[in-house]
């Protein structure tokens, strides 16, 4: 512990005694297994060491041992809160390296699922983040129970579509594995209507609450320069005034058809990140509706169904695919050697690079703000440690 680099700021409130407090990896607000070694002066945090690696599961090595057919279902376990994202990143990398076409219908289905997944992921984020701030939105978990109810609605949709609720295995190289079942479109539209209405309720509940504003505004400010230096992505970057979204910056899977509007806030505090995500909720719903409206007819996969797991082979080559997940840029670098398995795979997890901003912004805040800031970054530790 003593050898770890320590980011400490001088607060100088006069007291000389410092308290080292260990927060995590077993802690109600650790969002999994994050460990923060805090140095406190009274209630004020003056230093923080972020320790990660408690959830390391050798994902990249595992990818080398599994075939292109097998790995997508495992890939979803990197970021288990939005499992569709990693699946899509992996199959996109394989398709990029193998120069495999994806039919238009499959591309639209992928967009559909990616956006539904973003809504589901943001639902969970809103609930857990409010829980971090404690009180009733927290200890009582009122908001959490509300948002988890909405997330369940989306998981129900996924269950009808794929048969699974958490880790889907929906994508496969060359397209998708399942087509929409009968009546799904109607059910999806009804679900979105419900969620859209409830979002308004949450905004009323939170934004009209002076305590909520006091806890979030001006807390955990990430300046534009810091955000760009550290290389954060997703809502964290857009909350700091950078209008960068891979769906418009480097469109994949026919995103260019939807005219994605990128919400941006300039304040860079927790509240700005909250506003960005709330706007993303609505934008995702619009995209889902557009995808359902414009869903083309045709096959859902450019490849026939596989009879054995080694059947998909990719020619020698390498490539990097990147997609905009709920938490930011998820990238997958793939080196293929012509066999049925990748030679090497490297994940770029959005949570990992977003988490790196914490030691820069936490010092100077109170203990209570530490969990609020951590929640606003929205890390998923499966994706951080992989």
């Amino acid at each position, binding site marked *: 512990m003593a050898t770890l680099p320590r980011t400490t700021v001088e607060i100088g409130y006069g007291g000389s005694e410092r*308290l080292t407090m260990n927060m995590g990896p077993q802690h109600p*607000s650790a969002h999994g297994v994050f460990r923060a070694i805090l140095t406190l002066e009274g209630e004020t945090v003056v230093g923080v060491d972020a320790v990660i690696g408690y959830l390391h599961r050798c994902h990249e090595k595992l990818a080398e041992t599994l075939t292109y057919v097998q790995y997508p279902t495992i890939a979803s376990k990197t970021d288990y809160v939005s499992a569709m994202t990693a699946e899509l990143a992996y199959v996109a990398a394989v398709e990029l390296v193998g120069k495999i076409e994806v039919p238009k219908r499959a591309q639209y289905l992928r967009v559909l699922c990616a956006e539904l997944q973003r809504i589901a992921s943001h639902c969970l984020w809103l609930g857990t983040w409010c829980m971090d*701030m*404690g*009180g*009733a939105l927290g*200890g009582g978990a009122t908001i959490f129970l509300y948002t988890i109810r909405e997330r369940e609605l989306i998981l129900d949709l996924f269950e009808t579509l794929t048969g699974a609720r958490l880790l889907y295995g929906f994508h496969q190289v060359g397209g998708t594995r399942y087509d929409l079942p009968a009546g799904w479109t109607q059910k999806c539209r009804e679900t979105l209507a419900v969620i859209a209405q409830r979002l308004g309720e949450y905004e009323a509940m939170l934004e009209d609450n002076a305590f909520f504003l006091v806890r979030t505004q001006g807390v955990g400010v990430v300046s534009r320069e810091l955000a760009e230096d550290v290389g954060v992505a997703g809502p964290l970057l857009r909350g700091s005034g950078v209008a960068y979204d891979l769906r418009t910056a480097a469109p994949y899977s026919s995103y260019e058809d939807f005219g994605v509007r990128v919400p941006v806030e300039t304040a860079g505090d927790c509240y700005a990140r909250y506003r960005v995500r709330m706007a993303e909720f609505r934008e995702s719903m619009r995209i889902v509706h557009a995808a359902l409206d414009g869903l083309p007819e045709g096959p859902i996969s450019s490849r026939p169904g596989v009879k054995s797991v080694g059947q998909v082979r990719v020619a020698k080559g390498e490539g990097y695919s990147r997609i905009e997940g709920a938490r930011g840029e998820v990238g997958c670098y793939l080196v293929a050697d012509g066999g049925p398995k990748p030679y090497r795979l490297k994940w770029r997890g959005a949570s990992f690079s977003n988490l790196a901003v914490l030691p820069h912004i936490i010092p100077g805040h*109170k*203990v*209570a703000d530490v969990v609020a800031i951590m929640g606003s970054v929205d890390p998923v530790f499966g994706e951080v440690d992989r």
Partner: protein
Amino acid sequence: MTLAYHALVGFIVLNVVIGMVTYVTLLERKFAARMQSRIGPYYVGPRGLLQPIADALKLMLKEDIVPTSADRWIYNLAPIVFLIPCILIFATLPFAPGLGVADLNIGVLFFLAVSSLEIVGLFMGGWGSNNKYALLSAMRAVNQIISYDLPFVFAAFVPVLLAGSLQMSTIVEAQRGLWFVAYPLIGQLAFVMFLIATLAAENRVPFDILEAESELVAGFRVEYSGMKFALIQLGEYAHMIGTSFLGALLFLGGWLGPGSDTPLVGALWFLLKAMLIFLVVTWVRWSFVRIRVDHILAVSWKLLLPATIVLLLATGFWVALRGPHAG
């Protein structure tokens, strides 16, 4: 003879209080469940009615763990020191005319003095646990309770001034014509301030920084388990109900209501009003974010304390001009 009588009444009140505390937890859980579109405790007994008893039994059967590095004496003593003042506050509460342990002529003062003693047990628990979370929580507790006891006392003294007495039964009788909550302007302001200070004095959301489960895990009681944990919970809820009773007594006319000349009906009215205040406190609990320690102190010293002092002074002038409010 009188001693035996008082001891008997004390015994009855003590048991009633403990029984009520157990069932108030069920009330709160059911109420919270409704707010969160859940059902709440349901399986134990008819409609979950036996849940509090199951909880109590579970806590009694749990292993009692004392951390190795804890200060054993202080650690073991803390729950008792915490519980005693919380139960003692019921001593001066009259539940109906002539129905209570002791209707002291300084009843309100006794209540306020004793209820602020709980901080001693609380700090002992936080210190004796030898746990950094518990210590931080205990530090916060001292900060908060010292800050909020003053506005709490000042707000509670507004009805005292209006009635011109510290005796609880006299305060209730003074409200026979008009409850103090309906007293023009002064009454409403004092009631709102009393409620806010109550939330803080009871360590309830949004002022529950000592429990702060998302940062300090469970605050000063993080190391307690089994029966000691149960004692702390009991104390907290007893304090909460006691304060609700005080609020009902000072502002909502105590046992006054149709048919309140019969002691039992009066007691029922009193209970109803106290539960109303309790539910308001619960309602706040399940719909707010916890505020930060520096904001809490700022609210107390910069806002609530000056406001209550001004209000108390204004009431004093008013009473000096008009004389005490007679029933």
